[in-house]
């Protein structure tokens, strides 16, 4: 190699001529003899290389390098150019090289055997101490088989593991995709036609929903006063025809006409009904009911529904609580009220029952 070797200090404090000698020796050992040494400018190197290993340099280092280049007129670094089928792949012994003016020493190697070339590149990288700076992509550009590079230990184990994981992942993904596709196919087959049972079920479900909607809409509507009257045990008021209600409305102001209803209870109910503006009569709640326990309030509301008198309410209570017969209790209460000395009679009954 008859190139001029500049006497300048290089990275790692190794003189350039030493490096070049080592490279020469290494290349010979590797059986690569057809190395073309050449001096090239940065522009020429850029033009020549399809791919240049790009690295970034520390700011201070670039300045120093530029100073050296300016003073010496040549780069203290070498560029290894691997001529592959895809083009020339360059590995410069620097982390910033191309861009600064000056001469670069290029070792151009013909890589007919790309694997061997990759091995040379690997050795070169080791020799130059730039292992951490050269990416796997550069080696792959020289020799595209990742598996072979991994087997030879040229690519870092992490890259190989990543690749393995990716391969595994892709396999898993492929399997999952296949499974999903199969499931989709199955469901597609399933969902092709709605079975008769399912179509009826769908229809019924829709009907249920419609019914629920109608029911909700009905609930929102104001309650029919007649229905409420029936619920309150004032059914006879509800039995009044529309004409009767209209008549009642018309006579509302003429209270004298109310006297035509002979039954006093009914008359009072009608009067109240008219006076309240035909509002639904609300059941009277006992005083202090708000202070009652919730359980008692619920029981009272339940029992009071449809009762005609207090006695009936009491009878219902005794039935609910002790299982007494409503009719008997009701009659007893009536007798007790009608005849004097109710308590004494009760005591007598009690003593008779005990004996």
């Amino acid at each position, binding site marked *: 190699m008859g190139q001029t070797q500049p006497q300048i200090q290089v990275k790692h404090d190794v003189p350039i001529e030493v490096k070049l000698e080592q490279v020469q020796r290494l290349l010979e050992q590797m059986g690569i003899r057809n190395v073309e040494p050449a001096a090239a400018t940065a522009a020429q190197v850029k033009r020549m290389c399809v791919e240049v290993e790009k690295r970034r340099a520390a700011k201070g280092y670039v300045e120093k390098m530029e100073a050296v280049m300016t003073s010496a007129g040549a780069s203290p670094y070498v560029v290894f150019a691997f001529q592959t089928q895809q083009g020339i792949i360059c590995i410069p012994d620097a982390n910033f090289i191309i861009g600064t003016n000056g001469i670069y020493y290029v070792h151009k190697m013909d890589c007919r055997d790309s694997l061997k070339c990759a091995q040379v590149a690997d050795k070169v990288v080791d020799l130059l101490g730039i292992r951490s700076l050269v990416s796997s992509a550069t080696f792959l550009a020289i020799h595209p088989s990742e598996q072979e590079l991994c087997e030879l230990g040229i690519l870092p184990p992490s890259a190989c593991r990543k690749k393995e994981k990716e391969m595994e992942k892709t396999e898993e993904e492929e399997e999952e995709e296949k499974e999903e596709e199969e499931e989709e196919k199955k*469901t597609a087959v399933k969902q092709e036609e709605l079975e008769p049972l*399912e179509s009826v079920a*769908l229809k019924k479900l*829709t009907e*249920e*929903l419609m*019914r*629920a909607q109608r029911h*909700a809409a009905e609930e929102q509507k104001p309650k029919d006063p007649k229905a409420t009257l029936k619920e309150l045990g004032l059914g006879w008021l509800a039995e009044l025809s529309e004409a009767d209600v209209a008549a009642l409305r018309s006579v509302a102001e003429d209270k004298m006409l109310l006297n035509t209803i002979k039954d006093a209870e009914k008359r009072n109910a009608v009067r109240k009904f008219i006076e309240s503006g035909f509002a639904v009569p609300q059941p009277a709640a006992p005083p202090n009911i708000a202070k009652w326990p919730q359980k008692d309030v619920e029981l009272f509301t339940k029992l009071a529904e449809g009762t005609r008198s207090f006695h009936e309410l009491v009878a219902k209570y005794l039935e609910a609580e002790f299982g007494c017969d409503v009719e008997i209790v009701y009659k007893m209460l009536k007798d007790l009220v009608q005849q004097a000395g109710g308590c004494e009679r009760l005591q007598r009954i009690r003593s008779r029952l005990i004996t």
Partner: protein
Amino acid sequence: MNVIAQLEEAVKTGKELGPCTWFYLLILMGRKKELGGPVRKRLIAKALGRILLWAVNRNGKGNVVSLKAPYVRNAIILYAREHKCYPYDGAQASPQVERIINAHMRAIMAVVRRWVRIAPPCDPDTPTVCQRHLMVKAEWLRQFLSTLT
């Protein structure tokens, strides 16, 4: 018509839905296209909860309930039969329903297993046995399903 959206809206607003609604929902739960969307897990849990609550309340015997697949399947079919939901409004048995329910059992049991995981152990000495046999205390199940529905 988006049936599932309507159903979700009805549940959200507390509209009174017929008992058969839940059975029909379990029958149709795989029919995204016809229902207008997928049936959410919460809705499946609600439907199943209603049915199992009915089944647990119906059979007052025993302190512990084993929610294994045959029990759940029978509960669904009995519920439909008791409430006279189609096709049990005219027939006593329906192999078609049983086949559809069997096809949906995987999704249904996933809901049941989730409940069993959060249930207190039916027997403090052998909690793993309870988990394995999907056994839960009947009282807890009643309370839990009541809150769910």
